């Protein structure tokens, strides 16, 4: 049988389907990281409120909690599974690889998630309705459960980058996949960021408190919390970077100058912001605090997630599933076979069970149509394909090239796997020919 277990193709014009996942993922990270950070913060505040007998802190927790319910537990809890949904549409075999390796890890996270969601309602609505000692115990369990969700998901998203050793490929064990060399650095990096975010959101709440003394005290405290979180983030980021694969280092060399420039500006801006919160707490107003949250989302998280996605290339999971959904190598521990050679032999049109019969064989009449389908199949997980596409536009990268040049590039670079951050795409001559012909027509449209 010539078929490969490919799924139908979904393509979102101008942006590319994979970036839809990036959008949902970025929103989710803001909400979910805030919720874990806030859970830790709540444990700290509840401890303080209980030991120092401070009823005013419970009021603050209630306000913060209501905000958290809407922000994190509406947006966060929907976008979490939302990443799954969009990932299945964009990279079905990538998400399938993760599911079939880590289903029990995800199921365990679900147990934590249930406790967390039921717990957050109890934690907020039972303030003043249960004794304070029990409430304190509840906040401790809530904080641990929230951190537990991070501990569980982090191994999976770290595996998406790479396991770091060959153990998984020979044993097929989920433990060897889960506890890779960048799992712990990644976890501590995110804990730092969560602590910082909890402080940033906390500033929004404290800045609106009517009691001026309490506002001053809590704004200052949130400033310290954010500063600590920011420091931990930067510290663990350096450890994290040192555990990335070589192909990621190559990409980092390309992206790093821009990233570092942005990061330095961000670090300076937020250090100043946190320092102002500590030294001049009354200067932190609600509009300023809201603006800084938007800055975190747009200037911090979105480029950060784009970078993480880029560094994984050409893979989407465990360095054996290419972004174009082809299995790149054997995984003997799981009985998985690489598909690159088979694809080179039979081509996408015959390998995919979803190609209509009339397109299985390229003819002069269907050449451009087949070329378009092949290009979508091979390239659209990373590139937008329209003449003026928004994200990683393919046509801009081959601007001015004719069909022969495009084909030569594909045969000399893609088919040989010479570009380390792109999948090795070796196809029969007639498929390269059709792709090059279609890309050249689009290319010319863009140039007009």
């Amino acid at each position, binding site marked *: *049988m010539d*078929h490969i*277990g490919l*799924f*139908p*193709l*979904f393509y*979102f014009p101008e942006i590319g*389907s994979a970036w839809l996942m990036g959008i949902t993922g970025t929103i989710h990270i803001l909400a979910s990281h805030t919720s874990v950070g806030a859970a830790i913060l709540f444990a700290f505040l509840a401890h303080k409120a209980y030991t120092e007998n401070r009823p005013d802190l419970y009021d603050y927790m209630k306000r913060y909690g209501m905000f958290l319910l809407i922000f994190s537990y*509406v*947006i966060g*809890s*929907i*976008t979490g*599974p939302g990443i799954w*949904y*969009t990932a*299945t549409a964009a990279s*079905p*075999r990538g*998400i*399938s*690889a993760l*599911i*079939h390796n880590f*289903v*029990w*890890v995800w*199921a*365990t996270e*679900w*147990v934590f998630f*249930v406790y967390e*969601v*039921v717990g957050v309602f*109890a934690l907020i609505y*039972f303030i003043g*309705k*249960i*004794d304070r000692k*029990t409430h304190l*115990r509840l906040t*401790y*369990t809530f904080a641990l459960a929230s951190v*537990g969700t991070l*501990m569980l998901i982090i191994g999976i998203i770290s595996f998406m980058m790479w396991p*770091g*050793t060959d*153990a998984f490929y020979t044993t097929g064990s*989920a*433990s060897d996949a*889960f*506890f890779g*060399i960048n799992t712990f650095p990644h976890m501590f990096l995110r804990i730092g960021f969560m602590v910082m975010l909890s402080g940033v959101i906390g500033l929004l709440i404290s800045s609106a408190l009517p009691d001026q003394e309490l506002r001053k005290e809590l704004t200052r405290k949130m400033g310290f919390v954010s500063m600590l979180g920011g420091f931990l983030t930067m510290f663990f980021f350096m450890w994290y970077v040192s555990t990335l694969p070589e192909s990621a280092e190559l990409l980092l060399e390309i992206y790093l100058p821009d990233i570092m420039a942005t990061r330095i500006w961000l670090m300076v801006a937020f250090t100043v912001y946190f320092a102002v919160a500590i030294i001049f707490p009354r200067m932190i107003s609600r509009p300023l605090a809201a603006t800084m949250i938007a800055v975190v989302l747009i200037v911090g998280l979105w480029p950060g997630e784009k970078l993480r996605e880029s560094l994984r290339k050409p893979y989407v999971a465990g360095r054996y599933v290419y972004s174009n959904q082809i299995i790149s190598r054997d995984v003997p521990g*799981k*009985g998985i076979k690489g598909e690159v050679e088979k694809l080179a032999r039979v081509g996408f049109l015959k390998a995919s*069970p*979803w190609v*209509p019969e009339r397109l299985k064989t390229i003819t002069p009449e269907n050449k451009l149509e087949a070329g378009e*389908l092949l290009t979508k199949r091979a390239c659209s997980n990373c590139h937008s394909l329209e003449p003026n596409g928004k994200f990683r536009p393919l046509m801009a990268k081959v601007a001015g090239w004719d069909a022969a040049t495009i084909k030569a590039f594909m045969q000399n670079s893609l088919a040989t796997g010479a570009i380390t951050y792109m999948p090795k795409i070796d196809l029969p001559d007639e498929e390269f020919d059709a792709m090059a012909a279609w890309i050249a027509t689009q290319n010319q449209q863009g140039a007009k």
Partner: protein
Amino acid sequence: MDAATLNLLRDSAGVPFYPVVFQGLYVLTWALHAAFVLLALGSMGLSLVGVTQQKTSASWKMLTPHLIQTGKISISVLIVLGVAPLLFTQVIYDPNWYVTNSLSGLLVFAFIYILILGYLTYYWYYYANKKGSSSSLFIGTFSFLVLVVAGVLMHNFAVESIQPDKWMQWYAPNGVVDTSGTNFHIDAIRLAFMVSLAIPVVGIFLQNYSQFLSSRRDFSDEYLTFTNAMGTKIATIGLIISAVLYAVWTFQAGVLLHPLSIATVIGVVVLLLFAMKNSNSYVTTGVLVVVALLISGMRELIKYQIMANLGYDVYGYPMNIDWPTTIMFFSTFLSLGVVGVSFIVTMAWNVGKSEGVFDAENHVPTRKLGKATLYILIAWCAVYMGWGMIVLFKNVLT
């Protein structure tokens, strides 16, 4: 879609445990998820009636915010409970799940944001009603409709997933490939049956609500009689409507006379009798849980039969058993899942029964459950770190 292709679409990594276990977990967790979907739908819908009545009726004035709050919490719970069936179905029915999501990719993406819009506006509705705003009916209706649209999209994914014989035709109508991800197909009878279940669920909820509050002195007998009677009426009418739609749905699917279906029919009849008699709503709820599991089982039976007829055998899915993570899940489920959730539910029950502050520290079951939950979580984190270090040392140093 032939058997060879369906089997080829399975993940070559295999499944990490016996497929029947995932199937059982799917049936169980879908039933839990559906229970809260129906409660959310029913309480939201009834709260809209309440908004129109609360100016002239003291009982509706008291009940409406409680219904809105019930809907609010139910949506959160249905979302979190919905993650589990989503997970388990794509382990054993991955061809169905991933094909459907690709065919309707754009709707999959839209679903997330539609749900967010619906839930955010629901909070708006909650606050608008709390303030007595005249626009609360409009906001509530808008939110309700948006959430219904999200539900219909979810129904669309479920319906598409069990029609493999039509996938190719949907993907490439007349041989022309369509990658827009805009496929949308519904089964009106199945949808109507599922939605209709919201009526008896909210009816039985009202019976529970009335029984639960009967020990509280701050709720009048008149009010409790009002909610109790309304609950019985709604549950009775709703169950009759659902029973008719159930018969049409299963007849259409060719499984009406299957033993599981007959058991479901008996369950619905028993439930109807219990709901009408209404001597103990907690027992009625127990029967409702059994019926929910049977209905979930029926959904699974239909899917299983369709796939088996096409040559796709769930139980024949290749296995690569992974014991460490299997043990992790079941031990967490039985420890944190049972003890932790019992802690919060026990606390919630007693808070609801108390008119002042509930002193949980002096309530032995709550205190013990709380302490046990804390110790379980600490032990869990310690095991995780130890496990991780051993694996890392083994793989990095050897």
